[in-house]
């Protein structure tokens, strides 16, 4: 087997190259954009594990980022910053393990709705806890500088991309894809479906927990409605639709595309941004259901097919 196939090498090299180049531009603006871009890549790769490979479409992935951010502010001052972020990631993974068993019993649209509802529920629980404590947003002062956060987020994006590449090669990945294609048939050929789904769900929560903690460190405050904002979940799904989610390329393409679009349009023409986004979504769903990565695949297949075949 080759060390890396093209579809594995492209996203890894792309993330590494962007991470190396942006700081050379010598402006905090680019570091800030890179930080956001890598955050989305890490989120979208994590989502791909359970939703792209196993086909369980989560519409509540923000809950893991929210938990990560919340644990960071709760432990702020009590433990070192990075320990707090790590605890946030572990808490998100633990939460996924706890809710996973019942949640992963439902499939298709029910799973979509359930994950969305669960994230909203978690948001209101945290809002109520904060209200009961008399806290309306928490400030974080003296976090790491932007450059440090930039490199940390780049590492998460690379870790997420590497994770998807690795999982796809492992027995775990083969089993998850079988579950996506036909769960009953997968079980019947010997895939331990319940265990694999739960493991994938917990895995897909870890990095988002970390990302959520870094988001809080970057903005300098935690506010539940923002940390658990469902728009974050929607955006992850949009990236997967635009980029594809069958392998590690899709999330990178999707995140790049959406971040570029938002940088170009959002600040200048916010209304146009939403219209373009909506049109793109409809267009991709109708004409390129496997995203940009799928379009490459189709051209390759067309080129490889024998004439008249």
């Amino acid at each position: 087997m080759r060390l890396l196939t093209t579809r594995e090498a492209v996203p890894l090299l792309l993330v590494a190259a962007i991470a190396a180049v942006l700081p050379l531009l010598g402006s905090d603006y680019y570091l800030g954009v890179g930080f956001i871009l890598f955050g989305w890549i890490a989120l979208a790769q994590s989502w791909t594990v359970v939703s792209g490979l196993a086909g369980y479409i989560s519409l509540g992935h923000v809950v893991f980022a929210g938990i990560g951010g919340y644990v960071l502010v709760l432990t702020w001052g009590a433990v070192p910053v990075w320990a707090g972020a790590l605890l946030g990631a572990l808490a998100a993974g633990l939460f996924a393990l706890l809710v996973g068993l019942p949640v992963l019993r439902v499939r298709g649209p029910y799973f979509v709705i359930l994950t969305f509802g669960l994230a909203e529920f978690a948001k209101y629980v945290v809002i109520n806890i904060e209200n009961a404590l008399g806290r309306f947003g928490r400030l974080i002062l003296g976090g790491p500088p932007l450059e440090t956060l930039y490199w940390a987020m780049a590492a998460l994006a690379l870790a997420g991309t590497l994770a998807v590449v690795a999982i796809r090669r492992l027995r775990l990945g083969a089993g998850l894809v079988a579950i996506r294609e036909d769960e009953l048939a997968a079980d019947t050929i010997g895939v331990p479906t319940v265990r694999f789904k739960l493991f994938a769900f917990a895995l897909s929560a870890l990095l988002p927990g970390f990302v959520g903690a870094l988001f809080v460190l970057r903005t300098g405050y935690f506010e539940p409605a923002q940390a658990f904002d469902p728009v974050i979940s929607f955006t992850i799904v949009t990236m997967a639709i635009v980029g594809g989610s069958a392998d590690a390329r899709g999330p990178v393409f999707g995140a790049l595309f959406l971040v570029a679009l938002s940088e170009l349009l959002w600040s200048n023409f916010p209304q146009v941004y939403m219209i373009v986004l909506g049109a793109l979504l409809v267009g991709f769903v109708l004409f390129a259901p496997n995203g940009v990565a799928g379009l490459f695949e189709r051209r390759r297949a067309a080129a490889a097919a024998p004439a008249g075949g």
Partner: protein
Amino acid sequence: MLRVERVGKSFGGVRALQDVSFTVPESSIFGIMGANGAGKTTLFAIIAGNLAPSSGSVRLGDLRLTGLPPHRVAAAGVARTFQIVRPFRGLSVQENVETALRFGARDRPAAAMADAAGILDLTGLDGVAGRPAGALTLAQQKRLEVARALATGPRLLMLDEVMAGLTPAEVQDTIAMVRRIRADRGVTVMIIEHVMGALMALSDHVVVLDHGETIAAGPPAQVADDPAVRSAYLGRRH
């Protein structure tokens, strides 16, 4: 090797199986006959762990299969095909087989197929290995069912109407294939068929189900002469 003991199954009011018992000898080809709705597929689903029986139990050697989830039954060396095919549509034929090779039986028999190429060759799918499973003809998808089940390295292979809808020539090919699977790999085969001649030609033992009950069992020649079979099964269908 496989013992089915007083198995019953009801779906609400429908009694799909009642008090069915038999033993499948090691390395035999074991035929199951019965009219539409007799309970044949339900029996396979219970053995494979896809359905829980309402009563009774199934054992493979010393191991009680009843109560185990399907993937544990597969790990014990039992594989089935689906009468209504369930390929991994988005994957290529090759990937379907490779996936099954990575799971399935924990202790593969020494002679078990370990390579996708050999299995695709045996099932006549070598020419379409790269094609998405969803793009195959139904006859090819039926063969993919066999290929994927074989790739799990089973000791017991359950084939559910893999000859349905095939031309006579394809039926002959399939008969030869089943014989080869048993001869080369020592796999025990249970086979459900409506194609009577094929079943009689292949099987060492036959069980006939009618409305969920066993009405006859034994060597094919003896079962074919059984008056109960003639009236209940042949009489109604032919």
